[in-house]
């Protein structure tokens, strides 16, 4: 007969195991996301790209969201010697904490995938959902990103959903600058 105390301890142990997965660095986490989308047989060239002030102001104005960092992490993705895509890692702001997200583009600047690499607060974590992120596949700087119209919202995650959607539109606008720099 298993005592209720043992059951309680097992539940607590399970919760703690779930709470503390082994973390790698943010760059490694982002690269795992890229490989998760495009497979292991790719080569990644990493660069920390400072944001040009003029370009930054112009994009911020057009997408109605500021950049929260002075640089972004970018990758050139190659397979069999040919460039197959690019990826950009950046932050947007949730209700209290930054949300670190990654967007993978094809060579023409069309979104291939997006994912939340790190979410740090209680509310709005539903933006991590792969189903929700899938809505951005195929979008580019010419697409609409309005939550509720072009992108389905998430009840209880309004601030995060708006923030991430604008963030992805911002990286779409940044894409030509990133491509030129790599």
């Amino acid at each position: 007969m298993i005592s209720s105390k043992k059951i309680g301890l097992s539940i607590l142990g399970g919760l703690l195991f779930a709470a503390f997965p082994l973390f790698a660095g943010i760059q490694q986490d982002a690269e795992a996301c890229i490989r998760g989308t495009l497979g292991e047989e790719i080569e990644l060239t990493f660069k920390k790209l400072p944001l040009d002030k003029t370009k930054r102001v112009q994009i911020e104005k057009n997408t109605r969201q500021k950049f929260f960092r002075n640089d972004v992490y970018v990758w050139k993705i190659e397979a069999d010697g040919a460039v197959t895509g690019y990826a950009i890692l950046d932050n947007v702001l949730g209700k209290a904490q930054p949300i670190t997200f990654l967007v993978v583009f094809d060579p023409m600047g069309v979104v291939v995938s997006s994912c939340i690499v790190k979410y740090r607060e209680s509310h709005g974590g539903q933006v991590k959902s792969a189903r929700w992120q899938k809505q951005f596949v195929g979008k580019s700087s010419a697409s609409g990103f309005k939550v509720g119209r072009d992108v389905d919202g998430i009840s209880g995650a309004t601030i995060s959903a708006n923030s991430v959607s604008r963030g992805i539109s911002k990286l779409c606008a940044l894409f030509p600058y990133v491509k030129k720099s790599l």
Partner: protein
Amino acid sequence: MKIKMMLAVVSGAMLCMGANAAEEDEFFNSDTTIGGYGELHYNMVDPESGDSDETLDFHRFVLFLSHGFTESWSFQAELELEHNLVESGDAVTDEDGTVTDVDGKGELELEQAYLDYHASSELGFQVGVILPSVGLLNENHEPPLFLSVERPNYSKYIVPTTWFGNGAALYGDCEGWGYRLVVMEGLDGSAFGAKGIRDGRQKGYKSDASELLYNASINYTGLPGLKAGTSVSYNNAEVDEAAGTKNAMTLTEFHVKLDKDRVHGVFEVGNVDFAKPELSDGVESSFGYYVDLGYDIDEMLPFDARITPFVRWEDINTASSTTAGGDSEKSEHKSTWMVGVAVLPTEQIIFKVDYSVETTELKGGISDYETTRINLGAGYMF
């Protein structure tokens, strides 16, 4: 029992904190942010008998303050000024020495102020002034998130939104299934009655902790645009400490919200049971529900704003079952039809207008007493 529950929540949290989480990376900066929301209302009330009344009310001005200490630790607060002014009334001292404030105006409320430890997506911990997870609007009630000018009556009298108090919570989400377990201050059972449980909220003011409230909820948000969930709240509410009388209250509710393909649908239903109706003016239970259905029509119009006409049907009765039965179950039974339009020039700004007819089953000896309302509102969140 309650001490063990509290200890379990706190010890779980302490173990979380003791474990060594990931080192912070350069994508995190400790920062303080502010946000907020507010709403101005025009309300016209035209009762079946008597004069109509018109008011302009800056109903809520709310400031959010958040600070991220580390990647896992943050602080979040919500300070609310209601009705634009706080003014004390005349203090009255009862025979037993209780001092009450008569005719005070407005309210200043600290509706949230908690430390949050976000260990992972699956497990987090909060302690401070928190909100129990009950219904759609108790935790998320910014004006652009609901279609009517005023919050639904259901979200006032069945779920006493905004319901806040001192306590602690465990929360997490796994593959779109979110859970939250709350232990917080209980309700004042002496205030239970024909108007339900709303007046029993202690609002964190030197709250009596002799009987705690337990709230458990689960929500599914795995499909874009959908939120569906349920919650149970239990409190063996103290009625009279000296006499040792208590009245256990159980609130169960279900809610679903869909915002997809220009359709906006909401359904909430809830029931409150009282174990000892003799201590709640004979009221055995409160019951209510409402349905909203709206559709964005801006695609058909030359406007950039989201324009959403909607209809609502609401039926609530805070004394749906009483020991006396008969007319005592009719006076708080209100059914409401509402039509309205919500206009959002951006996701964070909303203008609303609605027209409603509320029918009270029995009021002042009149059956099916009708009250007509026209409301206008302007709201924002950021």
